């Protein structure tokens, strides 16, 4: 009897408390953050768990900071970038290679910015894998190439290699097949479904570890110089300071709280660090040079 009375008392206390806090929340004007992601710029491994990650953000994180979060994912990179410029998005997530393409346009509207990576590797090299019979890059003219779809770094490396050896753009010299992921590209090479594969070095290392017999059939021809492969997360510079403060706090919490850590795991974000927009030019230098090169090549061609 006594215990049930206690229980009732406890229950009504909780109820009263909850009502007060709810009332307090309603008074504040809700902050709204619109997130924009370029579809190809979302890493393959993240895409699979994107919905889960976003649910986590809206359910736990956003509620905690009293933020209303909306998500915009689009294939059209130009459209999203324009939206960001016009302040129709508070946030934009993209790759370095995309940033390099629109750097002049974007840099003026970028505010609070983060670098993020799916792993601790700061830099990545790319490799060109070919048949074992020949190690000469020149002999691959017109051969079948396999690469990961939308892998701008691999494409960039393939393109540069093509320009270097054959003096043509890669899609002009090679029969290109795009696959979902680099592992598949290596497997295709192994099973002789393609002659050349351009893949990240780490994928090749993994493939070798999974089947050492690979090397009998697959030859590493060349390795690219190291390039940064970070993702960029940027908030518009015109966000009010109060909102920036909330965002800064939530970003800090992302690394410090249990919920945050869990979200980072879901989104496969292994590393995250703040960066000044103007500092980014150093990171994207190889991309900028490549942009220059293909521009130059195009001009030459005309």
């Amino acid at each position: 009897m006594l215990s049930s009375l206690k229980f009732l008392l406890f229950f009504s206390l909780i109820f009263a408390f909850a009502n007060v806090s709810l009332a307090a929340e309603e008074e504040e004007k809700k902050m709204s953050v619109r997130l924009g992601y370029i579809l190809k710029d979302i890493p393959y491994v993240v895409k699979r768990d994107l919905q889960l990650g976003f649910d986590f953000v809206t359910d736990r994180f956003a509620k905690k900071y009293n933020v209303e979060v909306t998500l915009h994912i689009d294939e059209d990179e130009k459209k999203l970038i324009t939206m960001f410029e016009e302040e129709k998005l508070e946030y934009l997530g993209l790759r370095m290679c995309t940033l390099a393409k629109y750097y002049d346009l974007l840099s003026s509207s970028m505010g609070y910015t983060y670098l993020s990576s799916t792993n601790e590797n700061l830099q990545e090299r790319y490799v060109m894998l070919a048949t074992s019979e020949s190690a000469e890059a020149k002999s691959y003219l017109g051969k079948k190439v396999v690469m990961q779809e939308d892998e701008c770094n691999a494409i960039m490396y393939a393109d540069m290699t093509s320009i270097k050896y054959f003096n043509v753009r890669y899609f002009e010299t090679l029969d290109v097949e795009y696959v979902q992921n680099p592992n598949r590209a290596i497997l295709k090479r192994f099973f002789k479904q393609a002659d050349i594969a351009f893949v990240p070095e780490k994928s090749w290392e993994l493939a070798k570890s999974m089947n050492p017999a690979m090397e009998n059939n697959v030859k590493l021809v060349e390795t690219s110089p190291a390039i940064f492969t970070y993702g960029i997360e940027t908030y518009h510079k015109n966000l009010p300071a109060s909102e920036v403060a909330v965002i800064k706090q939530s970003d800090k919490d992302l690394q410090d709280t249990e919920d945050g850590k869990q979200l980072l795991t879901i989104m496969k974000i292994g590393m995250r660090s703040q960066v000044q927009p103007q500092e980014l030019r150093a990171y994207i230098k190889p991309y900028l040079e490549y942009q220059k090169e293909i521009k130059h090549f195009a001009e030459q061609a005309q």
Partner: protein
Amino acid sequence: MIRFFFKKLFYQVYFSITIIMVVMMTFIGYFVLKEQEKSILEVMRTQALTIAKSIELVSADAMVGNDQSFLVEHNLNVLEKSPIIEFIVVSQNDGESLLIEQEHWQVLDHLSAEAKALEKDGEEDSIIKNPYDSSKDESYYYVYPLNFDGIAWGWIHIGFKLDVLDNAYKTMYLKMFLLFTFVFIIISIAIFFVTKQIVNPIIALSHATKEMTRGELEVQLISERADEIGELTQNFNIMAQGLSKIQNELKNTNAMLEEKVALRTRELEEINKTLDHRVQVEIAHRREQEQILIQQSRFAAMGEMIGNIAHQWRQPLNALALLLQNISIAYETGRMDAAFISRVNEKGLLLTNTMSTTIDDFRNFFKPNREKEFFSVDEQIDKTLAMLQASLDTNLIEVKRDLKPDLKIYGFANEFTQVIINILNNAKDALIENKQERCTICIKSYEDSSYVYVTILDNAGGIDDAVIDKIFDPYFTTKDQGKGTGIGLYMSKAIIENNIHGKLYVKNEAQGALFTIAIEKNDTQKSSFNTSKEKK
């Protein structure tokens, strides 16, 4: 300790029921577990089938199109998502096989014989040692056929880690164990109470009966039970009441009886006092009678002795009379010289000496109460015969004597002589009455290991069967007044049985009565007899 434990009814019942229950539970448990194991395997099979089917569905195009890269990648993904799978093999009929393991894969030229053996007509499963990795243990191995458009393309082999199965078994066993323990405890408690219910009334009854044996009959047990035990308790109570009632009645009767007994005792004491007096009178009377009897027997014996002396004397008296006649004739004829006188004198002295000896013999016989002693049977009989010689001769009775020398009897020699005289006199009387051509009395002595026997057999025709049982009675006689007293045999029997520890009995032989005196030997006599026998 344990035996004591199991002597208690409670523990016997409790443990019996518990053991039966445990056996039953084990039995049921065994079957349930077997079924569970089967169903776990069934679940495993279903799971394997699902995975194989999904692989088939997703990879059908790749298989038909020979896109091995897809097969490798897809199966690596499958493995990544299902850690319980140890390996997948996609084997193409008449082609290469792909072995995909966790984070590893390879092209196999050919399958191991064990795995190949499972590729039969359809799905197949078995628990075998991992044929692709010798460092691994057994796995659940599942084989699924791949058919596309009716063409047998190949097979999918899936190996599951056995620890999944083991864990399932473990959980199952644990669950069963917990369930059984729980049930066991509950049932044990139930049995405990049931046993108590059954046994307690019995124990109570036992205690009650114990109390009853101690005399506490007012025991009453309380039982509200309607079953047999309740009935038993009721019956016990009724019995206890009954017994108690009977005891009370007994007590009353006892008291009454005691009173009566006391009364009787007093009466008896009174009677006793007077009785004592009467008995004493009676005993005195008896003694008197006995005295008279002894007296009479003495007289009788004396009478007979005197008869015998008369017979003994008759011959020397006649000779003396002749001698005296001879003296007077010699005087008349003048032949009385000195030589004649001395011859007569000598003859006369000889005769009177003989008569004197006879008197002495009889006097000795009548000298009573001498010490008990060992006496020689043949010597004593010879003496007796010598005393009776004259009277036997007169009646032309021949005595045949067959006496074993050196037989000894312990007792009063006189009394023994008196018995022999009695029997011989009776035989003589019977022979006189029943004249025979040759009157004989055979007197014989012999022994066996425990007795010395003396038998006296006459040829006077025996004793009439009608009276043979009475001849040892006092005052029984068939002889005329003044001749027989009926005391002789009575006294003889008394002497033999009371004073010499022997027996005297009679039976009729063909020619006459046979009297037997059997005297028990003492221990030394017995042993000497035995040793002498052994010597022979």
